């Protein structure tokens, strides 16, 4: 915590309140949103700030659906304002069409996504189905594992998305209920310091500039479309440099340092779990427990899901013998998305390791240190045997006959 520049106050906030306060402090011009569990308190809290006159003249737009919410965000952002929203699950699914519009038009909208399962069957609890649904939508995707991280990553999101070299929308993901509704200690800045870190919004081709009219949402057929999409992808892939730089600036500003890939005791680890979300904390405890009995285990958490930090992941897992990739979404006909990323990184770097894929926590199913300890035991068996000893895709805490695939 040395070199902390900003004074901070400790409060008890859940992930939703942390996000709402960050939006207020960012002096957002427009929040257009439609409520959905478990992200409702973010926009509810923000609308309360507006009603109380505490939102720096920010405007809250009530709309009739999430499709309209993201559409209003696109309009407000193209108009030239700082714009944010929040959603979950079915609402996210309804937004997907417009998520592609937002990124294609290079609009730096900030969205807090409180991750929740997708129907059917209907379920309001946490898993990563919604995050995975939008992973190709061209948004920067950051993952917060705690309310403090939700607060911090919101500022990093504004600073990164609005950077003139990036100009892309950013989603900050947090686990439904486990992070969104669990109140924890959060250190926050004064309003002045918080706003100072991101600064005033800088417009780029704002539609409300009547002197310089521009067209947004142009049609591009075969002659142009490929070039525009590749330009967009170039910006997204390269935004990792800006994210990295902003993680550094934020560390100096707050004393809390983030990395595209978070590592915990990986240097000498023979078995490593790679995961995202609140399970990171539970796995950290599991690693501590196993380390106490002499096991060489470690943990990797994906902080930046898109653009995917391939080099950082390769460096984090290079010394391991066996790796488990955890996916909190049903892969529906193949292996999990995070497993696929890890497998690609291994191949790209000529690394041969035992790699397993664990599907866990669907619809809010608990994942405990016992389950994670069991994964480390499976990995140890692979390390000892010098080969993968189980089918690729495993399930954790699923009732019924043992189920695995491939």
């Amino acid at each position, binding site marked *: 915590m040395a070199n902390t520049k900003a004074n901070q106050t400790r409060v008890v906030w859940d992930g939703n309140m942390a996000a709402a306060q960050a939006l207020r402090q960012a002096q957002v011009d427009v929040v257009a949103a439609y409520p959905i569990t478990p992200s409702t308190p973010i926009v509810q809290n923000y609308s309360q700030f507006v009603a109380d006159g505490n939102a720096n003249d920010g405007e809250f737009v009530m709309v009739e659906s999430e499709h309209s919410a993201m559409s209003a965000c696109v309009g407000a952002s193209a108009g030239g304002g700082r714009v944010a929203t929040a959603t979950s699950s079915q609402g996210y699914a309804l937004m997907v069409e417009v998520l592609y519009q937002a990124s*294609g038009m*290079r609009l730096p909208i900030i969205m807090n996504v409180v991750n929740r399962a997708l129907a059917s069957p209907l379920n309001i609890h946490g898993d990563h189905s919604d995050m995975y649904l939008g992973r190709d939508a061209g948004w920067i995707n950051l993952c917060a594992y705690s309310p403090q991280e939700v607060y911090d990553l919101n500022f990093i999101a504004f600073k990164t998305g609005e950077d003139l070299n990036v100009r892309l929308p950013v989603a900050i993901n947090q686990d439904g209920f486990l992070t969104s509704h669990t109140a924890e200690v959060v250190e926050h800045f004064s309003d002045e310091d918080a706003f100072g870190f991101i600064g005033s919004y800088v417009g*780029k*081709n704002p539609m409300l500039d009547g002197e310089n009219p*521009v067209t947004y949402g*142009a049609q591009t057929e075969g*002659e*142009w479309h490929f070039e525009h999409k590749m330009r*967009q992808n*170039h910006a997204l892939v390269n935004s990792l440099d800006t994210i990295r730089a902003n993680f550094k600036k934020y560390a100096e500003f707050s004393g809390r340092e983030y990395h595209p890939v978070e590592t915990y005791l990986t240097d000498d680890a023979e078995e490593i779990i790679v995961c995202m979300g609140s399970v990171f904390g539970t796995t950290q405890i599991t690693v501590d427990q196993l380390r106490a009995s002499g096991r060489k285990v470690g943990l990797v958490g994906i902080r930046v899901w898109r653009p995917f930090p391939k080099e950082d992941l390769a460096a984090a897992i290079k010394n391991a013998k066996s790796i488990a990739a955890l996916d909190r979404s049903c892969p529906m006909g193949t292996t999990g998305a995070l497993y696929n990323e890890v497998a690609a990184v291994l191949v790209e770097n000529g690394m041969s390791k035992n790699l397993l894929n664990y599907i866990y926590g669907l619809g809010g199913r608990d994942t405990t240190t016992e389950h994670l300890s069991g994964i480390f035991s499976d990995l140890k068996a692979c390390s000892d045997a010098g080969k993968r000893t189980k089918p690729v895709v495993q399930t954790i805490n699923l009732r019924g006959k043992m189920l695995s695939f491939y």
Partner: protein
Amino acid sequence: MTEEHLLKGWEEFEAGAILYSFDGSSHHINNSIQHSVADWRAEKPVFNEEHCIHCQFCWVYCPDTSIISKDKQFDHIDYVHCKGCGICVDVCPTNPKSLVMFTEQTTNDEAIRNWPAKDTKKDA
């Protein structure tokens, strides 16, 4: 779409597929003032002065401001903007009509020579 645009590489386009309406003045190359927006028209309306009573129905109904009148007199058709919808022909009240649709490749002189005769059934 111009040759210049087609030759551009991915790194040369404005981010977000943004298009600027004007480059200095409103007579920029992307403007319909300079470029025909009617090149996909298959049939065109042709005007025949002989029958026109200058009622201005066509001028009122044209959805694309392509009937050009001066001093409340029919003047000409703006073929650079006319899409060939035929509404002007439909609303023309004279017999025979003062505006008739002909295929794009028919010259206006040819069209006038082949103008339909007065519809006698209609008058009766």
